[in-house]
């Protein structure tokens, strides 16, 4: 029944009433989207992105990861990561990719992935000076003895972290190893590639 036909119906003679369409008020549209937005914010803060492993009171996977009790190897790695990011990462990058012209990459570096760690450990203890080849590229370096002030366990942790991160698969370094190396090389002027190559790996 169109509008014209209905208006022709005499009142009370039984033209069937019919719902008409009208636009949703703008206020309700705005309110709906505001509520959806608030709901989204709430989920962002409380849902842990619907992660089945994240239960209240934890709000995210990262927070849950933070509260994992650490022991042994995992604790050493976590400590190494922390030290790396404050001491080494500024030049060598948080991803170990280095900085062009300033710091060579550690990821995949033959110096890091060597079977032994004696050459590697000497670099942060004494610093490094001069020309050095890393992954087939030439670098002219001038690194300060960044690790000389670190404790044996911190330096061991950071060396372990470097040797086992970003695809590197070399073995761990213990605090006693670092202590032994430090006793020999402490106070030595910055080493160069030739000197490093003259000591056993």
């Amino acid at each position, binding site marked *: 029944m169109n509008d014209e036909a209905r208006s022709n119906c005499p009142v009370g003679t039984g033209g069937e009433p019919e719902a008409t369409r009208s636009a949703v008020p703008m206020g309700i549209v705005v309110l709906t989207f505001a509520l959806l937005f608030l709901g989204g914010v709430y989920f962002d803060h409380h849902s842990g992105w619907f992660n089945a492993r994240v239960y*209240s009171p934890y709000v995210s996977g990262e927070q849950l990861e933070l*509260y994992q009790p650490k022991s042994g190897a995992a604790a050493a790695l976590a400590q190494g990561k922390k030290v790396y990011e404050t001491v080494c990462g500024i030049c060598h990058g948080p991803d170990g990719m280095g900085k062009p012209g300033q710091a060579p990459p550690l990821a995949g570096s033959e110096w890091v992935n060597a079977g032994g760690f004696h050459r590697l450990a000497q670099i942060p203890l004494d610093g490094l000076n001069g020309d050095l080849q890393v992954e087939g590229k030439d670098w002219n370096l001038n690194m300060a003895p960044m690790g000389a002030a670190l404790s044996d366990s911190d330096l061991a942790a950071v060396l372990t972290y470097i040797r086992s991160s970003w695809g590197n698969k070399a073995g761990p370094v213990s605090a006693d190893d670092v202590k032994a190396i430090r006793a020999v090389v402490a106070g030595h002027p910055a080493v160069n590639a030739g000197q490093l190559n003259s000591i056993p790996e």
Partner: protein
Amino acid sequence: MKNGFSVFPAAFIALGLSWCGFVLGPAKQLGTEKQAAVLNSSDTYPIQPTGYATLGLQVYRANGCAACHTEQVRQDGVACEVVLVKAGKNPAAVSNLVSTLKLTGLTKDEADAVSDQITALGGSVETHIVPVGVDIARGWGARQSVAADFLYNDPVQLGSLRAGPDLANIGIRDPDMNWQLVHLYAPSAVAKNSAMPPFRFLFEVRKLGDAPSPDALQFPQGFAPAAGSEVVPTPEAKQIVAYLLSLKADAPLYEAPFTPVTTKP
């Protein structure tokens, strides 16, 4: 009813969406749940119950235990506690520092800062993860209940009312089988002012033979049955007690981490 038939697709969509949300989503998230690794250990959790313990769940269900008991521990928060393990070379300075620091109830960042301060002086510390909450303060569990706790429970008996205590860790709290049996037979014999109804029909009172049955209940003084008779559990009673004793939600898991307390108070 101009658009009468649109009721059906509309209803289908509405039901379909809630089915996706309430059935498909959770099944996708947790339906393939397997035994989980216990933190800092090579063990897996939970241990699959065997024999009477599996049957006991059905007795628990049949007797409506979940109407008054829950099997879920709530956790309101988590705190860190820094514990000094070794004072190191400079014990005086370390103990001086430790006495000035707040070592419990810390967030992870605060705990890290405190352990850095102590390790800087040569001491070595451990950071313990301590779940907090009212249920945990009552001694009902070491951590909150998570999905892994119910891996072998079919159906899960979560419960929603606590007329009685939570049972998620009853196997640790009261590991004594005789205590559990006596408690089922006559709750007030072992738990004063207990509101639990006695489940006498799970037991048989019979005349003492030549020698007492090895299964017979050992009652505390004043609650023993009449002279010349003994109370023996039926298989159902043994099953439900085996089930209760298997309730031990005490493993630290990835989703509910905590540092286990090695010395129980």
